[in-house]
Every structure is written in C-alpha cells, then in structure tokens.
C-alpha cells in the first residue's frame, strides 16, 4: 500500500532526530502519504509517541492490519 506512494519497499535516509521529524520528512518527499493511515515501528516495535532515532534503527511504516 505505502510502497505505491514511496515507489520502493526500502528506503535509506539520513537519520532524522526523532520520529516526528521522520514523518515530516517523509510527507515532504512523498506528499501522497498524507492520504494514508499508517503507524511507525522502530526496530519492530510499534511506537505511540515521539521517540529519538539512532543510526541503523530499522523503521517501518505500517498500514492498517487485516489479519484473520
């Protein structure tokens, strides 16, 4: 779903200072993301608030779940 907006399944970028900044940068680069619902996971853990990011953190943009 989000791959359709970003154009690839993986993206390497300069480390933004925190997850809010990351979201801003992504929306700048891929404006169509604004219409999508997604959550952010850092190192396979869903985050519910702003967190500081480090080099080599694995960030995932996660669309709504549909299991079951």
């Amino acid at each position: 779903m989000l791959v359709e907006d970003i154009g690839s399944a993986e993206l390497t970028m300069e480390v933004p200072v925190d997850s809010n900044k990351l979201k801003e940068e992504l929306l700048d680069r891929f404006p169509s993301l604004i219409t999508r619902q997604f959550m952010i996971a850092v190192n396979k853990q869903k985050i519910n608030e702003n967190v500081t990011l480090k080099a080599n953190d694995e960030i995932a943009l996660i669309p709504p779940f549909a299991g079951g």
Partner: protein
Amino acid sequence: MAKHFFIEGAIKSKMIADSITSHSTKINIGAHDVFLGQVRGDLIDGKLVKAIEYTVYQDMAEKELERIREEMIHKYKLICAHIHHSLGIVKTGEICMFVFVSSIHRKATFEACQEMVELIKKDVPIFGKEMFEDGSYQWKENQ
C-alpha cells in the same frame, strides 16, 4: 510447531484434522477450542471480492504472535496453543486463519481463543489486498 505461524496459500481441512489428531496423546487435555477465519466474498461498490492476498511484516509479526501466544498460555493456563495464518492468495470461501487452544476444562479454552483472535487482529502486522473479479483491488482494514 509454535514458530510455524505462516502458511503459503489457504489452510486445508486436512491440516486442521491432523492437528486435532496429533493432540490425542496429550491425555491431560479435556477441551479444545478452534477458530477458523474464512475469506468473505464482500460486495463492495458493486464488485465482488474473489480473493485476498496476504502479506506480512514477518519479523515483527512473528514476535507479536509469539508474545500473544505466550501471554494467553500463561493467563489461561493452557496446555497448548497454536496459531496459523495464510500468506499469499486465499480465495473467497477458503480458510486463512486457524487458532487452536487446549486446556483441562472448556471455560479457559473459550475465553483464550476469543482473546487470542482479537489480539491477532489488533496487534499483528498482516496486510490484506482484497482482489475483485475485474482485476482491481483495495486494501482491507480490520474493524
């Protein structure tokens, strides 16, 4: 067994039957409860869903499934618990999820099975593309 969460394609009835049979040697079990998720042929804006293609954020999904499984075993004192979910294409009418819990008595199995299914739907990053008969698709979202 616990680690084999994902299965390519639909879950076949033989696998479900074999799984039940394999518990016959665990004679402390007095009750099983099973949940089966089936792909529904929804009619959306006049178009019929013919299949769902499932994808997963695998590392995170496996971690979440293992966490849910362990939490439910501990909370309800289950003897065992198994979760299987399809990946790839599952046609309308086929089975895409199989949750199987076993305990000494029935009450724990009813409650554990229900809670486990709700947690899987809420916490596990599994994604579903609803494919329509005319070749178009839309992304499914759990209610």
